[in-house]
């Protein structure tokens, strides 16, 4: 009994720690400027040379500081310096490496030279790789396996240190993109542009083959396209003209990497303990990863050495009124700690948000009606219930596009022939994406008029931007053409009433998709219904992910679902998806529809290297008209992001390009604690009632048994 009491007492005391009973966080954290948020999927990579997914950038963008970033408040999206002291100066050179004027034609430019100056005094997060002993030598550079006996996390190292960020660290990271043991997703693209990177990758591959067990010292091999000029300046040499390169400089691929960190992690026994750069990133950004348990919680703490950035002092019109400039000039970050908890399921996530234990939340379809109401004009606003809790909504159209592609190599739906083109146009009219967005996305999306989403140069608002092959402009809004027009086009294509005029066989079109199961049945049924409108039979060929990818690679499809999320806000990043040289079949590119049109391809080559200008817009307009006419995709829709946040969270502005947003956010922890207490008072009566019921039924049972025994 004593033992039981000894066990139960601390357990019960721990439950009564003075905090709210349903508070999942320690009481000691109350009142502190901590942001509570969640992640649904563990990141695969945290090495800036390997990570490329949104859920990985959610962490990395706070930890690493590449040269550039997107302005948090200004629209359209605009690049501004982050680690760079100013925007990089670009010089153009001819084949003889002689300077060319800034307005030199792209075909004359053989090389572009980006010179980047970094800010002085930037320092890395605290890390054991920087620790120095009394003699000033790296303390943990030569560890033996037994030195790691009691080490399970970075925090187990007794000492840590920091050092100043140098231009050489940026150059080192660019070399890492070609590291033979790393899988850099952009090596192919960068190999085409950064001078010598492709050969450098081959050289490193050879070196690694010669001595696979040895640490590969990248600095022992020069990369001609990257030169360190001085402590704070480096140059990147690009083949030809590639204005989009500046956007890549805002990604963690180009963040600084101290070589001693890579050496530190390469020591024997580190990998067995999951002590790798892919698991424990080391950056010079506003936060560092202080706890990494992706099965439960990942915590980022403020980098105590980060003091190079202030909250922006200007934004776009209306930002000041919205309170978004209230913190102008304050040192960033404004929050000390960010706690990411793993929430795989949407229901617990949503309920914890309503209880105040998460500061912001997306909206799942299940909770949409509870959270959002649409006005007569189609404007989304939070419901009265949310309003009463002080919850606000921010929305933004994502720089993404969800489309349905036709395989250009298919004999029925593909190709530039009149017959197939009219068939595709008829289908484009029949498949009503406005209805799709309304039914399946709760209205969170806008019908696409082309591959380019709003917010990207080249997108046109209003009548000038509509797809005239599918819509008419009526009463100041686009209206989808009638089914009669679709049927007429279908008849002109040789399929009157959905029947092949030559063979007298009904027209059957196959859709390849990975969607199957009950969850997707409604969507697929809806799609069949759209085809039924023009008497075309749609056959859905559901397949697993591997086979689907295989079919796409081989061009063994007729129609398929796909999506694209922008790498950077430039039309080139969308229009290249339909460039002939990018065809999936034979070329292994990103043009999954295998679309090919010589005029379009020529215009693309011309447009891709241009600065944004009226001339570029005119070329894009022509390209979009070609696409709309050829209709190689059903343009689908651009999703709209809806995010809810509590009233205690400030400086929230939707920005779909910037991933390093957390440093701008501010939390009013006092207000949060007060409201949490108000919303989460425990109900004690069920406990008393339960105890009473247990006692009474026990007593009754005892009485019945006693009676029975007596009657015996």
């Amino acid at each position: 009994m004593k033992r039981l009491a000894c066990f139960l007492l601390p357990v019960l005391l721990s439950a009564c720690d003075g905090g709210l009973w349903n508070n999942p966080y320690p009481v000691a954290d109350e009142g502190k400027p901590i942001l509570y948020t969640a992640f649904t999927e563990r990141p695969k990579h945290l090495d800036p040379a390997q990570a490329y997914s949104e859920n990985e950038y959610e962490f990395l963008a706070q930890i690493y500081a590449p040269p550039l970033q997107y302005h948090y408040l200004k629209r359209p999206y605009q690049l501004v310096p982050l680690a760079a002291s100013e925007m990089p100066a670009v010089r153009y050179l001819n084949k003889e490496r002689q300077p060319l004027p800034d307005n030199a034609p792209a075909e004359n430019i053989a090389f572009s030279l980006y010179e980047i100056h970094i800010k002085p005094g930037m320092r890395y997060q605290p890390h054991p790789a920087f620790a120095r002993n009394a003699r000033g030598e790296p303390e943990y550079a030569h560890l033996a396996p037994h030195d790691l006996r009691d080490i399970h996390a970075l925090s187990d190292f007794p000492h840590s240190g920091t050092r100043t960020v140098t231009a050489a660290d940026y150059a080192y990271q660019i070399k890492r993109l070609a590291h033979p043991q790393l899988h850099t997703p952009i090596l192919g693209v960068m190999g085409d542009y950064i001078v010598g990177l492709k050969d450098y990758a081959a050289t490193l591959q050879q070196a690694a083959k010669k001595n696979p067990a040895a640490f590969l010292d990248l600095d022992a091999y020069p990369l001609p396209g990257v030169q360190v000029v001085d402590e704070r300046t480096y140059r990147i040499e690009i083949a030809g003209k590639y204005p989009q390169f500046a956007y890549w400089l805002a990604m963690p691929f180009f963040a600084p990497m101290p070589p001693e960190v890579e050496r530190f992690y390469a020591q024997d026994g580190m990998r067995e303990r999951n002590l790798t750069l892919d698991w424990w990133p080391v950056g010079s950004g506003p936060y560092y990863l202080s706890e990494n348990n992706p099965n439960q919680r990942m915590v980022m703490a403020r980098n105590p050495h980060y003091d190079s950035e202030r909250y922006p002092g200007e934004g776009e019109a209306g930002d000041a009124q919205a309170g978004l400039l209230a913190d102008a000039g304050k040192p960033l970050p404004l929050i000390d700690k960010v706690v990411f908890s793993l929430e795989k399921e949407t229901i617990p996530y949503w309920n914890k948000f309503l209880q105040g234990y998460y500061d912001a939340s997306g909206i799942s379809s299940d909770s949409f009606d509870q959270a959002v109401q649409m006005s007569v004009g189609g404007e989304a606003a939070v419901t009265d219930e949310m309003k009463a809790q002080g919850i606000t909504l921010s929305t933004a159209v994502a720089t993404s596009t969800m489309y349905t592609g036709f395989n250009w190599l298919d004999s029925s739906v593909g190709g530039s022939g009149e017959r197939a083109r009219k068939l595709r146009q008829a289908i484009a009219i029949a498949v009503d994406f406005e209805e799709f967005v309304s039914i399946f996305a709760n209205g969170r999306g806008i019908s696409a008029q082309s591959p380019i989403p709003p917010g990207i140069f080249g997108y046109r608002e209003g009548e000038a931007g509509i797809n005239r092959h599918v819509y008419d402009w009526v009463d100041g809004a686009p209206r989808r053409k009638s089914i009669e027009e679709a049927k007429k086009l279908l008849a002109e294509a040789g399929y009157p009433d959905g029947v092949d005029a030559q063979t007298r066989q009904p027209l059957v079109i196959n859709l390849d998709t990975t969607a199957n199961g009950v969850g997707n049945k409604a969507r697929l049924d809806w799609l069949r219904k759209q085809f039924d409108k023009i008497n075309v039979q749609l056959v859905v060929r559901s397949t697993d992910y591997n086979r689907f990818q295989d079919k796409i690679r081989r061009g063994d499809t007729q129609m398929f679902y796909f999506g694209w999320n922008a790498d950077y806000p430039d039309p080139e990043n969308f229009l290249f998806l339909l460039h002939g040289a990018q065809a999936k079949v034979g070329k292994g590119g990103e043009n999954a529809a295998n679309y090919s049109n010589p005029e379009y391809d020529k215009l693309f080559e011309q447009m891709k290297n241009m600065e944004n200008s009226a001339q570029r817009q005119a070329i894009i307009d022509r390209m979009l008209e070609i696409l709309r006419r050829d209709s190689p995709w059903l343009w689908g829709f651009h999703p709209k992001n809806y995010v809810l946040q509590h009233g205690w969270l400030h400086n929230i502005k939707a920005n779909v390009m910037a991933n390093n947003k957390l440093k701008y956010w501010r939390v009013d922890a006092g207000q949060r604690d007060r409201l949490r207490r108000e919303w989460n008072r425990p109900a004690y009566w069920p406990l008393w009632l339960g105890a009473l019921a247990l006692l009474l039924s026990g007593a009754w049972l005892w009485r019945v048994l006693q009676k029975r025994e007596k009657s015996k």
Partner: protein
Amino acid sequence: MIAYLIRRILYAIPILVGVNLLTFALFFVVNTPDDMARMQLGIKRVTPEAIEKWKQQRGYDKPLLVNGAASGAGKITGTIFWQKSASMFVFDFGYSDDGRSIGREIATRMGPSLAIALPTFMIGLAVYVSFALLMTLFRATALDIAGVALCVLLMSVSGLFYIIGGQFVVSKLWHLVPISGYDGGMGGFKFVVLPIVIGVIGGVGSSSRWYRTIFLEETGKDYVRTARAKGLSELTVLFRHVLKNAMIPILTGVVVVIPLLFMGSLLTESFFGIPGLGSYTIDAINAQDFSVVRAMVFLGSLLYIAGLILTDISYTMVDPRVRLQ
């Protein structure tokens, strides 16, 4: 008994090899090494060179089962099957496809799984046996009928309903425990109490009905009649005689699952945010991570065999007539 145990352990080796071979065959019927590489590298900007490099680094560039290009033992040892399987027999699970140590992952995640599964198992067993004995005690009365009806009702409800309903009522309406989360040590009590209670309630229906049937069968036997004739109280008859003699069928179902407890529960852990092993295998299958799949299947088979051996041993403890030879 020692000889019996050694024999059983030796039998386990071909079983484990067979399970391993079957897992390997099933996995690679559905996925090719190229598919695995593409899954790991993502769908954007993946080049054929990157796929080859990935396969080479992780040893998936070798033949699956027989290496025709090699000679002698190399025909077998130079294959994916050998290189991915042999090390497991010395409990070296290697690394997952995203580069994490599988052994360390299992060691880290088994604790939280056990924190839920062990109390649920023990409390559950006590509750189910007690409830079944209560129904047996009041057999053929209104209480028994109500108990059976309750069991049928509880059996008819989906496990997911208990979880979502429990979270809604206890955490959202009454604010008594956190909806989800986990913490080690004593601070973790408030996180595990609801999943344990729900786990126990979720099993009441089927288990209590099963135990009731066992107990009712026992109560019809001669020794029970004799005990009653001797004037023993009904409680003494049930707890001292019926329960003891019903142990063999109970142990058959119970002991075998003990070693598997640390493998966790997929649904419970997902909804309550428990960082256990419940979803490790499923996530690995979805990610086409063969290294994790084969490690978890190997471990599951090993623990199941251990459970069966433990069950045999437990028989000798509760029934002196049983001898392991």
